[in-house]
């Protein structure tokens, strides 16, 4: 009952000495590492990043065509086989991972920077601006994220840069919604009133009081947004609205694999697995981080 949290609090009361913020991080780490699924997620994400960063450097050129080895099944020479132009599938998966990582991280960064700024401001000031602005956000949220991104990409034209912009902008409404909610909840806390009593300016309150206390929500949101953007990039490229051939992307690999589903099913299988594992990894990581960062969810 009530005495359980009380007594656990007490254990930190009496303790004195060394830096406890490190201890707190260690505790978050320990809670995180105790969750097997979270650790699997972390491993998958780290593997994805390693492949994206180092794969293209170590593997053969993903665009090198070899008409002697067309549509070869997996073998020792080509671990994941070759495609219809004789290109090494493993190399293309790795270079597709790089595109996915770029699209996922950059578009999410755009969405977070703009969305958090707008969300904190509108949540902090409220008033008529908030009322009007949030109706616009509601309209944007009414479109599913992918439909919105497809529409934007179609207007902007197909290129990696435009994919990143389209995915970034499409994610802004959700980030705004979360940041606004955090701002509204945190500004009601007494320490914000205390800051007002200190004589703090509004910008200071947002930057030093509200944003840092919303950080864990933003971290969790990012781990959800990145895999969303990765799927988004694959989808746009699959539809021809994203990265253009011959550049490798998991979406494009799926598109071209369609014609050879009967002869070479692995052409669709491997990029499919790559997408599935990557998004699964991020989602598990996100869940684990949320549980580990938020002790209230504990037990």
């Amino acid at each position: 009952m009530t005495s359980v949290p009380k007594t656990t609090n007490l254990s930190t009361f009496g303790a004195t000495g060394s830096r406890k913020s490190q201890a707190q991080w260690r505790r978050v780490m320990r809670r995180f590492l105790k969750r097997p699924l979270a650790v699997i997620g972390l491993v998958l994400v780290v593997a994805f990043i390693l492949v994206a960063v180092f794969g293209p450097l170590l593997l053969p050129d993903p665009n090198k065509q070899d008409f002697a080895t067309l549509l070869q099944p997996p073998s020792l020479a080509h671990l994941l086989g070759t495609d219809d132009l004789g290109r090494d599938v493993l190399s293309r998966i790795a270079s597709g991972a790089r595109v996915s990582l770029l699209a996922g991280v950059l578009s999410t960064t755009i969405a977070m920077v703009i969305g958090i700024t707008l969300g904190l401001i509108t949540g902090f000031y409220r008033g008529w601006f908030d009322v009007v602005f949030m109706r616009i956000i509601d309209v944007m949220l009414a479109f599913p994220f992918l439909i919105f991104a497809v529409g934007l990409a179609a207007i902007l034209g197909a290129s990696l840069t435009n994919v990143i912009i389209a995915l970034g902008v499409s994610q802004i409404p959700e980030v705004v919604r979360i940041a606004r909610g955090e701002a509204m909840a945190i500004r009601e806390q007494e320490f914000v009133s205390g800051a007002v009593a200190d004589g703090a300016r509004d910008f200071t309150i947002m930057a030093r009081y509200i944003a840092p206390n919303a950080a864990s929500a933003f971290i969790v949101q990012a781990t959800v947004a990145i895999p969303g953007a990765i799927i988004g990039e694959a989808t746009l490229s699959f539809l021809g609205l994203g990265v253009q051939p011959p550049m490798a992307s998991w979406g494009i690999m799926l598109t071209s694999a369609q014609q050879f589903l009967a002869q070479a099913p692995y052409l669709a299988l491997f990029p499919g697995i790559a997408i599935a594992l990557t998004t699964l990894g991020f989602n598990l990581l996100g869940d684990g981080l949320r549980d580990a960062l938020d002790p209230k969810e504990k037990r």
Partner: protein
Amino acid sequence: MRVLDVSHLRVEFGTEDGRIFAVKDVSFTLGRGEILALVGESGCGKSTVAMSIPRLLGDSNVTIGGSVRLNGADLSSLNEKEMQAVRGKDISVVFQEPMTSLNPAYTIGNQIAEVIRQHQKLSRQAAKARAIELLELVGIPDAARRLGAFPHELSGGMRQRVMIAIAVACDPQVLIADEPTTALDVTIQAGILDIFRRLRDTLGTSIILITHDLGVVADIADRVAIMYAGRIVELCSAQDVFSLPSHPYTRGLLGALPARAVMQGGRRRLTDIPGFVPPPTTDPDECQFAPRCPRATAECIIRRPALELVAAEHEVACYHPGPGDTP
């Protein structure tokens, strides 16, 4: 006559951060028609004691040791189903937050009647009549009409009265009240305490009152158990605790009360107890108050003092008990 006999009660919680010794060794008895106050500061284990008597600590990570006897029958030998029959009927509980303990979806009449019919074979009509009777007992005016009210339509004080009505619906022998007036205003609190007094006087209910407020103790308790770090350090009559406080911790608590400081000549300085409550993560064989105690000697940290009689009906767990000014 002893209604309740708690002996060597131990409660431990297993948490991610290790074991928590919430209640280390608590023994007391409760006589018929007696009000016993369990007093202590947060973390001393008083609420855990209260919850472990009706076995409401429904956590798989809890280990409970010792025994609780109701009229001589050991409750720890009962299974969960038998225990359910005891709860509400023989032992019932009133919590601090009346809002969260009432179901917002049902009228209060419904909720009272449900408890009655759970334990007694009564017709709907009879249960309703009994509900009205109970609401009148706890001083709710216009009881018949109030039966149809939903919890949110009542004030905090009224909700707490309803909670008490539900708790005493089956005329329990033991009523456990966990900080029942802490969330209420003083003028409302006075009324609630009055109900407890009346229950004791008219129905002979035995009451365990968990509180941090020595004012409440002075008002209605017969006996007092002062708890510190999971143990009872002083157990005596309500008069004695104020006139002959013997444990240094009890004396410290009294010295910290602003009202007493004013009474004793408006001395503008309160006694504060230096240091901290020890973390409940260990259970060493020593007096856990020693590091904060002005009277502590080497003896205190070699072996833990046991509760011993210092006067009639007055037990203290201290090697250096007794009145006299603390430095």
